[in-house]
């Protein structure tokens, strides 16, 4: 069992301080924000290092931060061996929303990333099948963005009541 701070320490030891920041709200859980450039390496390290062994990606959620004009992804992981959890985030600007895909680290990220792309429109680099998953392929816009405006017609059919 390791707390988020302890895991942060391990990460800083391995990769240096500048890529990680510890975050937390007034309530709830803490998280580590990882810069997108290092995400793939850090994730692989977190999975394989024997001090962390985060072998289970529970959830991958896209988030849109309209104030900062940023898109983010939150990863919830836990270790079935050491029984600790870790939440880490990556945030990228809306103008260049490129996030490395973690599909090769945790297979389950495959569909979750497709869903995040579908709903938020960030790009997951090196994803094997970077297509929409819930919406049809020719749907316009990404519905879960805060500034999303629903299209009026889809293939000539009205989308309003």
């Amino acid at each position: 069992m390791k707390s988020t701070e302890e895991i942060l320490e391990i990460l800083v030891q391995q990769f240096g301080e500048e890529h990680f920041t510890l975050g937390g709200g007034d309530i709830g859980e803490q998280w580590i924000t990882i810069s997108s450039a290092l995400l793939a390496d850090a994730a692989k390290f977190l999975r394989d290092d024997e001090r962390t062994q985060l072998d289970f990606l529970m959830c991958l959620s896209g988030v849109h931060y309209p104030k900062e004009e940023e898109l983010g992804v939150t990863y919830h992981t836990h270790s079935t061996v050491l029984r600790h959890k870790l939440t880490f985030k990556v945030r990228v600007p809306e103008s260049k929303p490129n996030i490395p895909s973690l599909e090769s680290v945790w297979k389950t990220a495959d569909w979750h990333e497709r869903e995040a792309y579908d709903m938020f429109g960030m790009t997951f680099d090196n994803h094997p099948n970077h297509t929409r998953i819930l919406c049809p392929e020719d749907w316009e816009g990404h519905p879960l963005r805060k500034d999303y405006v629903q299209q009026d017609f889809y293939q000539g059919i009205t989308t309003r009541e």
Partner: protein
Amino acid sequence: MITDTDQNIEKKEMVINMGPQHPSTHGVLRLELVLNGEVITNVKPFIGYLHRCFEKYAEEVKDYSKVIPYTDRMDYVSAMNQEHGYVLGMERMLEIEVPERVEYIRVIVAELQRIASHLLGIGAFGLDLGAFTPFLYCFTEREKILDIFEKTSGARLLYNYMAVGGLMRDVHKDFKTETADFVKTFRPKIKELNDLLSYNQIFIDRTAKIGVLPEKVALNYAASGPVLRGSGVKWDLRKDDPYSIYDRFDFDIPVGSGEVGTLGDCWDRYIVRVREMEQSLRIIEQALDGMPDEGDVMEAIPKRIRPNEGELYVRTETPRGELGYYIVSDKSANPFRVKARAPSFVHLSMLPAISNGALIADMVAIVGSIDIVLGEVDR
């Protein structure tokens, strides 16, 4: 595409759409199968036919408690468990202490719902393999649970019964005796089900060594619930990350053992569900004993839900596996972001990994054994 130059006959693999309208896709799932004869060489699941924008609704509904009815509609065969996860998360956010009686009632209904859901899963699995009768036997029993729920919450499928901090209403006055009666009558039925279906030689022939999911792959795909336990991993959130009052009860975690075939095959996933029903009965019995008779189930319900800034990820064990809610609050009246991590979604994504080389009939067995609910996959 391979072209046979000698005879100028074009040879192609057959691509066939299984679904969205097909008897055994458990809803509106489309599988694009590439076939060589009847052997599947590739399978591509297509989802989204039942997408109802749960997450968008949750952000725009202007009230945290109005999300609860929508959680019902995700996994519509285990609505109680879906609500349970969400209200737990909100209680953690608001730091509400829930009365004892509420906790006990929640555990009882959640476990009853687990049995009801497994009965449906098992029955439908039998139906997929051509056994019609066990399906109706399962439904008869499920009906009894739904009757109890109907008396308690007023609804048979989508209950909207749990509230943040309590319950919408107290249970009806015969709840305890009716539930105890059900537990008593249901136990022998599990044995009957085992005789009729589980150990039927044809059923074993159809499910053993089919769709084998090794432990490593299961963990990498973040499988959970009976699918993960079928691969021999002893992992149950009720025990390993206890929530509510599950740490007070004594129960076992059944895991697959490759009893009739290979570890992690369809039969293992199936039998884990059957054995889990027995354990749920044990939990219900203990909870009925411990449940306080008096107490206001609505006393801890907050007038107004407005959590501080922050976020959390709460996970509970539903009949299908780990249901997670990622809830982000920005101090306003509605959630900033709610993401539901649906177990069926994750399980469906590993379908291509476990079904190559299977026959069409096996495909049906594999889809049945991972027990997906499309309402949850598409949300």
